[in-house]
C-alpha cells in the first residue's frame, strides 16, 4: 500500500492544467495508490472466467492471450450490435467538454484522462480506427489509434478509475453515459482476464457461498443472533429473525456489508427492529444473502448469474414480494436490470404493505420495494411510534448515493424518513445533492485499501460539501442509503472532514422507534449514551 499524503498536501497539489504532449502520447503510469490489485486466479477459476494467472499492472508483460487483439476486436463488434447505447455513444460525442468538471475523479486528480469525455475517447479512438469509415480513411487525423498493449494498460488504469456514478451523463446534452462506456470497457478487459480482485473475490464468494464477503450460512445466523442480543440489551425487547422460512410473505434482501461491519451493522439492527415491531411475516435467506451485486462491475453476464438467486429463492420460499434494503448499486441492478434479466416474476404478487394497505404500483412487475419506500409509507400512515428526540445528539445531512439518485430517482423517500426520526436535518449545497450528488469516490468495486489515494481524491467533492454543513451548521452525521457508502465514507470523513460520522437511514429509525414492551433506553444503537442519559 502506498503512503497517503496529508489532506492539505493532496488538495494543494491538484493541477488542472493538461500536459503539453497530446494525450495519445502520454503513457499510463502505474503509481501506487491509483490502481487496484488484479483478480486472483482462484477467483477467476471459480467463475470460469478466461485467462486466470498471477500478474501485476506494473509488469511489462501482462500475459495476455496470444490472439488478444482479435478477442478485443470481436468483443467490441459483438457489443456494438448488442448495445445501441455503446454504438450511439461512440459516434455522437461533440467534445463540448460539459462533462469535464462534473467527474469527482477529475476534480480530485486534475488528470485529463479522468474527464469523462477523454475517458470515453480512450475507447473511441480504437473504435474509430477499426469500425468507422472516417477512421479508416483519415487515420490519426480522425482521432484514431491502433490497439496496442499500452492502450490496454491505459484502459485498465482509467476504467478502474471510474465509479460508474453517471454524474457526467446527467450533464451531457446527449445523455452519453460514461458508466455504460466503463461497463463495456470492463467487459472487454475481462475477456483478456484483466480485472481487479476487489471485484472478483466478492463475485466469486457471492456465487459460491451466497454473499460478497463469503459469510457462510451458520455464521450469518451467529451474526444475526449477536445483533439480537445487542438489541435486547439496548431495548429489552427480544426478537427472532426468520431465516429461509418457507411461506413467509416477504423476502428481505440486504447488502452483506450491513451485517459485516460497523457502521452498517447498526443499520441492519434498525431493519431487524422495524420488521419485528410491525410484525411483518418476513424472512431473510442465507442462499440469496446478498442484495449488492459486484457482478455489475464485471459484465452483464456475471451480474445476471448473481442476481438470478433472488428470484429463484423468492420462488422456492413462496413469498409474495421482496423488500430490498439500503444499498446503492444494488438498486441500480434491481431497478434497471433484474426484471429484464431474470424475470418475469409472475409467481409473486404486486407488493402490498399489509399494515397500511398501500399497493406499490411502481414495483408491480419487478415486485421489489425499497425499504425507504416501505418505511416512509409506514410513517405516513402513522403505523410507527417514533421518538425523534432519541436522535437529538445527531445533526445529520443526507448523501444521495449515485445509483438510487441517477438510476432510480429515490430522493424524497429517505428524506421523509430522516425528517420523521431526527429533528436536526440539514441539506448540503444544492449542486451536490439529489440528482447532482457526488460519488463517495469508492463505488463500482474501488473501495479497496490499495486505491486509497484515488478514493480520497475522488471523494473530495463529497467531503467538501459535508465540510460546508459541518462548519456552518455543526453537522456531525452523514446519513446514506448505501452499504458501500457506509464502508467508504468513514475513512473519507476522517481524512477530509473529521468529526462527522456515517450512518444508514435505518439506524436513525432504530434509535427513534418506540417498540412495544421496551425498557427505557439509555443508549443509542451504537451504545452511546442518549441525550440526558450521560454519566
Amino acid at each position, binding site marked *: 500500500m502506498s503512503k497517503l499524503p496529508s489532506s492539505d498536501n493532496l*488538495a494543494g497539489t*491538484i493541477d488542472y492544467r*493538461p500536459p503539453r504532449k497530446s*494525450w495519445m502520447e502520454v503513457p499510463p503510469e502505474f503509481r501506487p495508490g491509483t490502481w487496484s490489485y488484479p483478480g486472483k486466479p482462484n477467483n477467476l477459476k471459480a467463475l470460469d472466467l478466461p485467462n486466470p494467472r498471477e500478474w501485476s499492472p506494473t509488469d511489462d508483460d501482462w500475459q495476455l492471450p496470444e490472439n488478444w487483439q482479435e478477442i478485443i476486436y470481436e468483443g467490441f463488434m459483438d457489443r456494438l*450490435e*448488442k*448495445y*445501441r*447505447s*455503446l*454504438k*450511439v455513444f461512440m*459516434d*455522437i460525442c*461533440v467534445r*463540448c*467538454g460539459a462533462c469535464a*468538471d462534473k467527474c469527482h475523479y477529475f*476534480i480530485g486528480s486534475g488528470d485529463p484522462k479522468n474527464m469523462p*469525455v477523454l475517458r470515453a475517447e480512450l475507447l473511441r479512438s480504437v473504435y474509430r480506427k477499426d469500425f468507422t469509415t*472516417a477512421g479508416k480513411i483519415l487515420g490519426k487525423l*480522425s*482521432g484514431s489509434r491502433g490497439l496496442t498493449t499500452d492502450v490496454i494498460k491505459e484502459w485498465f488504469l482509467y476504467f478502474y478509475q471510474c465509479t460508474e456514478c453517471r454524474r457526467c*451523463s*446527467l*450533464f451531457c*446534452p*446527449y*445523455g452519453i*453515459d460514461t458508466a455504460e462506456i466503463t461497463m463495456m470497457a470492463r467487459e472487454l478487459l475481462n475477456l483478456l482476464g484483466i480485472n481487479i480482485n476487489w471485484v472478483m473475490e466478492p463475485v466469486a464468494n457471492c*456465487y459460491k457461498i451466497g454473499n460478497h464477503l463469503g459469510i*457462510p*450460512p*451458520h455464521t450469518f*445466523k451467529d451474526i444475526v443472533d449477536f445483533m439480537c442480543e445487542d438489541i435486547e440489551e439496548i431495548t429489552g425487547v427480544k426478537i427472532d429473525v426468520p431465516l*429461509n422460512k*418457507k411461506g413467509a410473505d416477504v423476502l428481505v434482501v440486504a447488502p452483506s456489508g450491513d451485517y459485516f461491519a460497523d457502521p452498517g451493522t447498526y443499520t441492519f439492527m434498525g431493519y431487524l427492529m422495524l420488521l419485528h415491531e410491525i410484525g411483518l411475516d418476513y424472512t431473510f435467506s*442465507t442462499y440469496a444473502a446478498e442484495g449488492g451485486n459486484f457482478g455489475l462491475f464485471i459484465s*452483464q*453476464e456475471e451480474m445476471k448469474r448473481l442476481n438470478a*438467486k433472488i428470484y429463484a429463492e423468492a420462488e422456492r420460499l413462496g413469498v409474495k414480494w421482496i423488500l430490498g434494503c439500503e444499498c446503492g448499486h444494488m438498486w441500480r441492478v*434491481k431497478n*434497471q436490470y433484474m*426484471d*429484464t*434479466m431474470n424475470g418475469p416474476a409472475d409467481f409473486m404478487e404486486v407488493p402490498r404493505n399489509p399494515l397500511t394497505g398501500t399497493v406499490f404500483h*411502481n*414495483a408491480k*412487475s*419487478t415486485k*421489489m420495494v425499497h425499504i425507504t419506500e416501505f418505511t416512509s409509507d409506514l410513517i*405516513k400512515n402513522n403505523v410507527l411510534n417514533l421518538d425523534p428526540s432519541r436522535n437529538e445528539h445527531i445533526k445529520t445531512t443526507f448523501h444521495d448515493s449515485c445509483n438510487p*439518485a441517477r*438510476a432510480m*430517482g429515490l*430522493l*424524497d423517500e429517505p428524506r421523509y424518513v430522516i425528517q420523521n426520526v431526527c429533528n436536526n436535518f440539514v441539506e448540503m449545497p444544492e449542486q*451536490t445533492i*439529489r*440528482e447532482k450528488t457526488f460519488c463517495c469516490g469508492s463505488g463500482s468495486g474501488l473501495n479497496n485499501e490499495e486505491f486509497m489515494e484515488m478514493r480520497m481524491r475522488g471523494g473530495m467533492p463529497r467531503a467538501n460539501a459535508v465540510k460546508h454543513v459541518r462548519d456552518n451548521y455543526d453537522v456531525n452525521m452523514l446519513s446514506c442509503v448505501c452499504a458501500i457508502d457506509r464502508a467508504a465514507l468513514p475513512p473519507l470523513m476522517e481524512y477530509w472532514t473529521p468529526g462527522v460520522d456515517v450512518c444508514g437511514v435505518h439506524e436513525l429509525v432504530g434509535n427513534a422507534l418506540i417498540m412495544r414492551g421496551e425498557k427505557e433506553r439509555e443508549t443509542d444503537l451504537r451504545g452511546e449514551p442518549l441525550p440526558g442519559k450521560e454519566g
Partner: protein
Amino acid sequence: MNALYSLVLVLALILVPLLGAGAAGWHTLFGIIIPYIAVAIFLLGFIYRIVKWGRSAVPFRIPTTGGQQESHTWIEQNKLDNPSTTAGAVGRMILEILLFRSLFRNTKMEHHPGPKLSYGSAKWLWLGAIAFHYSFLVIILRHMRFFTEPVPLPFEFLGTLDGILQVGVPSIFLTEIVILGALLYLFLRRVVVPQLRYISLPADYFPLYLIFAIVISGILMRYFMRTDIIYIKELTMGIVSFSPTVPSGIGVLFYIHLFLVCSLLVYFPWSKLMHLGGVFLSPTRNLANNNRMKRHINPWNYPVKVHTYEEWEDENRELLKEAGIPVEKE
C-alpha cells in the same frame, strides 16, 4: 496543431471551386453534378447511420434519472426529468432537443484554497449552442425561398423577421450576426480553455471552419460582391425540379458557397455532426424510468450458468442443520 490541420483543409476546399468553377469554368460539374451527389450522399448516409444505430439492440432500460421517481401519491414526481410514461419521456426529449435542457444544467467547478470547491452556474455554453443551432436553422429555412416558387408565406415571413433591424441595403439578417458570434465563441473556447484544447480533434475544428466559411461566403455574396439572385434561383429551381440548367452570369463566389455547402452535406453523415440524429436514440434519455412497473425485454437475453439452491444446500446441508436453518432434504 489540430486547429491548423482543419484550417488548411477548409482552405483547400475553397480552392477547389475557385479553380474548377472559376478558372476552368466547369459550371455544370459544380452547379449541378456535385450538388446532386452531395445531397444523395447526405440523405443516404443519414439514413444509413440511423438504420445502423437502430439495428443495435436496446437490451436494458437505462434512463439517467434527473429527479424524483414515481413513488407514493404524496411524493411529487418530477415527470419530465424522471418520466415514468412514454408521454413523459417524449416531453423530456422535446426539452432536450429543442431547449438543450441537460446543457442548461451546466456548472463550472472552482477549486479555491482550503480546499473549497464551488459550482457556479455556467450558461454560456448553453447560450452559444442555442444561438448557433437556432440561427443555423433559421438560415436554412430562409434559404427555402430559393427552392420554392411561389415562396410560401412562412419563409417570406421568416426573411422579413430576420431582417427586422432594417439596417443597410439589403438589410442585415440578425441570424448572420448571431451565427458568426456563436461560431466565434465555440471556436475560441476550444482554443482558449486548456482542457478543451486538449480534447479537441481536427474533427472538432473542421465543421466550425467549414460553417464559418459558408456563412462568410454567403454574406459576401449578399452585401459585398453582389450576385444576381435571378440566376441563382434559376439554377436552384432547376435542381429541385430535376431539369437542371446552368444560367450564365453566376460568379465564382456562389460556386464556392455551394461547394462548401456540398462538402458539409457529404461530411455530415460520417462525422460527429450526426449527433443531430443520435440524440433521438440515446437510451439514457428516450426511455421512461418504469422498469419496476413494466418489464423491458432484452432481445438477446440468454440463459447463464447459476449456482442453484440445490447445489448450495448440498454443499452446506450439515452447517444449515447444525444452525437450525430449515433445509429441503434432511
